[in-house]
């Protein structure tokens, strides 16, 4: 079977600034890939390219065997097969929590409103926010907002979840509630690519850890290998700075 996602020689530049060089990556069904690397190393850009929020300058990205970097594909339809969660939550402030979650099912997936609301409520229960359906995003804590954002992505039954530093904006005591939820998703078999500075969490959930440096995947492998016994000097340097 083809991997769920395959990147081959992906390149992305902003003007003269080449942000991704020849990136190769394979993600199998149910796998969790964790991207680590210094700020500016291209982790967010990689996720945005996979979600077609950015257009790659070269190389191929395939989702379930289909090339999605082909300009003839319907980018909106491709995006609707992935769930994205951002560092800054990006909930829609003018809508209730429930409306945030039902927007895509109703408008993109053609689910009728009553069904969408029922599913949204079930999803809110699942992320532990059953009583917050009618709240406004601004009335929630950061951890709660991020869990709503995760619910909003999950309700569309994505084949793949892309999570960009989803705990970086949170107060330390709220990080745990979001990581617990991600751990639970992983154990249920959700395929995820996430980018995080939580090395303990990375070791726990990752099947593969990729270390990005200057837009290249310098090292990739099982978490214990990359995080505990890195082969590259740059990786060791990065990890020692994180742990210091």
């Amino acid at each position, binding site marked *: 079977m083809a991997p769920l996602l395959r990147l081959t020689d992906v390149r992305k530049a902003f003007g003269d600034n080449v942000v991704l060089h020849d990136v190769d990556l394979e993600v199998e069904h149910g796998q969790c890939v964790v991207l680590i690397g210094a700020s500016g190393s291209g982790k967010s850009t990689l996720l945005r390219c996979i979600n077609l929020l950015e257009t790659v300058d070269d190389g191929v990205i395939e989702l379930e065997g289909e090339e999605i970097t082909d300009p003839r594909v319907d980018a909106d339809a491709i*995006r609707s097969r992935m769930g*994205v969660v951002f560092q800054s939550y*990006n909930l829609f402030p003018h809508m209730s929590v429930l409306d945030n979650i039902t927007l895509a099912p109703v408008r*993109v997936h053609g689910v009728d409103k009553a069904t969408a609301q029922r599913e949204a409520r079930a999803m809110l229960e699942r992320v532990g926010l059953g009583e917050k359906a009618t709240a406004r995003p601004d009335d929630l804590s950061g951890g709660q907002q991020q869990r709503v954002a995760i619910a909003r992505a999950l309700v569309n039954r994505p084949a793949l979840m892309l999570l960009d530093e989803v705990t970086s904006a949170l107060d330390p005591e709220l990080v745990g509630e979001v990581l617990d939820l991600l751990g639970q998703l992983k154990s249920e078999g959700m395929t995820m690519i996430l980018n995080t500075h939580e090395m303990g969490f990375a070791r726990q959930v990752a099947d593969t850890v990729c270390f990005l440096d200057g837009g290249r995947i310098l090292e990739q492998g099982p978490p214990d290998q990359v995080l505990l016994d890195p082969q590259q000097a740059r990786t060791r340097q990065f990890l020692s700075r994180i742990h210091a």
Partner: protein
Amino acid sequence: MAESSTSAWAPSQRQLERERYRRSRSLRSTLIAGVSTLAVLAVAVTALVTSPGWPRVQETFFSWDKAVEAFPDILQGLWLNVRIMVGCGIAIGLIGISIAVLRTLRGPVFFPLRAFATAYTDLFRGLPLLLLIFLLGFGVPALRLSGLPSSALFWGCVALVLSYSSYVAEVFRAGIESVHPSQRAAARSLGLTYAQSLRHVVLPQAVRRVVPPLMNDLVSLQKDSGLIAVLGVIDAIRAAQISTAADFNYTPYVVAGVVFVSLTIPMARLTDWVARRQGFHGAGGMV
């Protein structure tokens, strides 16, 4: 539970003393404000009434009998102004938002639309409204093109709509651009199309933010609807002018001024109220 905890609390001596002080301060401020307002008014009225020309001004501008005589016609004219404001207001809102959306389109494919929208705002914001009213109100009917309405009222309204929609478009555009790009990214990442993101995510937030300045434009439109009097349409101002012409008594103008102000004041208060409510929601802990 909350009740028992409040009933257990009694303000301390220090707090009672603070409140007494605040009350006496605010009483004093109110007194000072009241007395000074009265003093200024008294001086102004005295200066006016004792001025050498006052008896004549009173007769030609503030004649009660003339006011009573002109009032019904002016009020009827005002009804036209109100209808113009409502009808044009709706058209202005729709056209303004469309032009704003065209101006924010990205990509070379949309260049012609973007260029059209830019030219539209540049042209109609630049032309003095009165000039536009003259050009359209007298010019177009004179062409006698079949199929086009020839009423001066219609073309006066078109002039108002063109001019105001170009202002309003810029207000909407500022609102659209004030919505953070991450909101659009979030919408697109959910699979919403460009148009759906605009419709459900960007525009609702943009419109909310620009309601106070738009209300301001509406007050202004209400006033400027009086300009189409130059086309001979009988609105409140034209009605006043007709009544004035009979005996060169200018009281009807004063009456028209009063009815316009009494219409715009509630609008202005409504604007303040909306702005306050928005500010409160938008800025969170704003004092």
